């Protein structure tokens, strides 16, 4: 049942021009960045050749690229997730799902999965660019995989947060802005802690970006994976609670 909703959600996204527009714009910007990054590497390469343990092409091209992809997704994710529940509420189509033999968690998981699949599809297309470097050189496969996994987890948590924000309001734009606000806050939350060492521990742990950072360095640590999984779980549970509560209060 979850997959029925997820596939509908995914296909609905492609029915609107928004998804296509976002794909095109993202592809264009990332392609430009990719090329300039490759250019930088070409300039640096002769100088790095002699250095022992110098950063390779993966560190110079792929890591910054992935970092930017994560940042750009933070900007576009709200536009995708905003309509997930608020549109259904506004058009009063949610009752179709509510009167079907489904549980609330089926509905929320289906919606979440649909959006996440769209993000992963987008990520896959963007990942083709660094993968194309295999044609001319060899990449650090482990680092690449860690980076992709980190991004996938990051995007899933964007989707979970967006789905929750969308369940709060009937106005898609309000959902988009509040999603963006929360994502940005979680992105920059460790900036404030930089000066004072005591507080920074917690803030740095909460930051979406710092966990992505360690993936991009090629570090696969359970604490980072757990952070994203907990975040996703938290917001999915909150969404389920929110929908249940709406059934009670009307």
């Amino acid at each position, binding site marked *: 049942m979850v997959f029925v909703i997820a596939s509908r959600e995914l296909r609905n996204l492609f029915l609107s021009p928004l998804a296509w527009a976002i794909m095109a714009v993202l592809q264009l910007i990332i392609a430009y960045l990719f090329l300039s990054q490759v250019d930088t590497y070409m300039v640096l390469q002769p100088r790095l050749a002699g250095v022992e343990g110098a950063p390779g092409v993966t560190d110079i091209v792929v890591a910054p690229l992935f970092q930017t992809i994560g940042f750009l997704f933070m900007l576009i994710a709200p536009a995708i997730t905003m309509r997930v529940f608020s549109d259904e509420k506004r058009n009063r189509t949610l009752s179709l799902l509510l*009167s079907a033999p489904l549980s609330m968690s089926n509905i929320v998981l289906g919606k979440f999965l649909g959006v996440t699949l769209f993000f992963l599809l987008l990520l896959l297309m963007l990942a083709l660019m660094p993968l194309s470097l295999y044609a001319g050189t060899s990449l650090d496969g482990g680092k690449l995989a860690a980076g992709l996994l980190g991004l996938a987890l990051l995007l899933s948590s964007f989707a979970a947060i967006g789905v929750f924000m969308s369940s709060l309001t009937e106005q898609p734009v309000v959902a988009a802005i509040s999603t963006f606000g929360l994502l940005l806050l979680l992105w920059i939350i460790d900036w404030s802690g930089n000066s004072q060492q005591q507080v920074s521990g917690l803030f740095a742990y909460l930051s979406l970006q710092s966990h992505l950072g360690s993936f991009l360095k090629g570090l696969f640590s359970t604490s980072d994976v757990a952070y994203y999984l907990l975040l996703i779980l938290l917001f999915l549970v909150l969404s389920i609670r929110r929908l249940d509560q709406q059934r009670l209060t*009307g």
Partner: protein
Amino acid sequence: MDTKVLIGVEKLFRYYGHHLAVDAISFELAQGEVLGFLGPNGAGKSTTMQMISGNLAPSAGRITLNGIDLLDRPKAAKAEIGYLPEQPPLYPDLTVDEYLAYCARLHRVSKVQRGRALDRAKQRCGLGDVGRRLIGNLSKGYQQRVGIAQAILHNPAVVILDEPTVGLDPNQIRDIRTLIRELGESHGIILSTHILPEVQATCSRVQIIHRGRLVFAESMQTLEQRLTGKSLILETARPLGGDILAQLPGVDGVDIIGTQRARLHFQADNPAEQVAASVAAQGWGLVELALDRQTLEQVFVELTCSEETAQHGEAA
């Protein structure tokens, strides 16, 4: 035919904040019945239907669908219903076929039966030639029919239709009424509407809900008897003498309404023939002699208006 109780509603309450929208409603619906739900705007019709369909949780009370408790086993219970809300839950970006196929999958109609179920629902709702069109481009009437098709697609035991004939033209309304009567033979149907003749045309039972309470619940037959009434209205060209009329066989009482008008009450058979003969014999000049039929509208107005004005008086 063995009549199974399809919907059981016991002491249903629903509060919106402090406002009591549904107040201790209890009723049952058996297989083969079409229940008409009447009431003024804001009486609690839609709220009750939303609760039965699982869209809203009741504040208190019990709902069973085909014997399954909606609150204990919501998934199993919801499999037994088809629900058309006041505003049909349609996705304008989908074609009719895509939309109905999605609904069928949501209701766990197996892949083998899906095609047949789709064809049957489309044919029953007259959607045969619009399957490939976008729902958003269809007229209101067709959209409404897609909504009905969605509700009967998975062949549920109970069909709940909230104002199904809104926005339809008279021909379509007739088609839908026929469809509802047809469905009523094998399913249990709850139908809410503002159109009173519709209830008389399609329903086997009527319930009037007012300010969250059930104020009237009768089968259509009982209602018909009640509506037919036991009185004649007589109007004559020249003034009447009440005594002569009162002595006629079959007439049990006479109310003189005006000098030339009277209401004649009777218990047994209709004494119109004797009354006419006597009027002719007295040379009063018969202008009108008619059975005093109360309409459902009068019952409705009686039950829902008097109280309302009283309440407004209190408020002011």
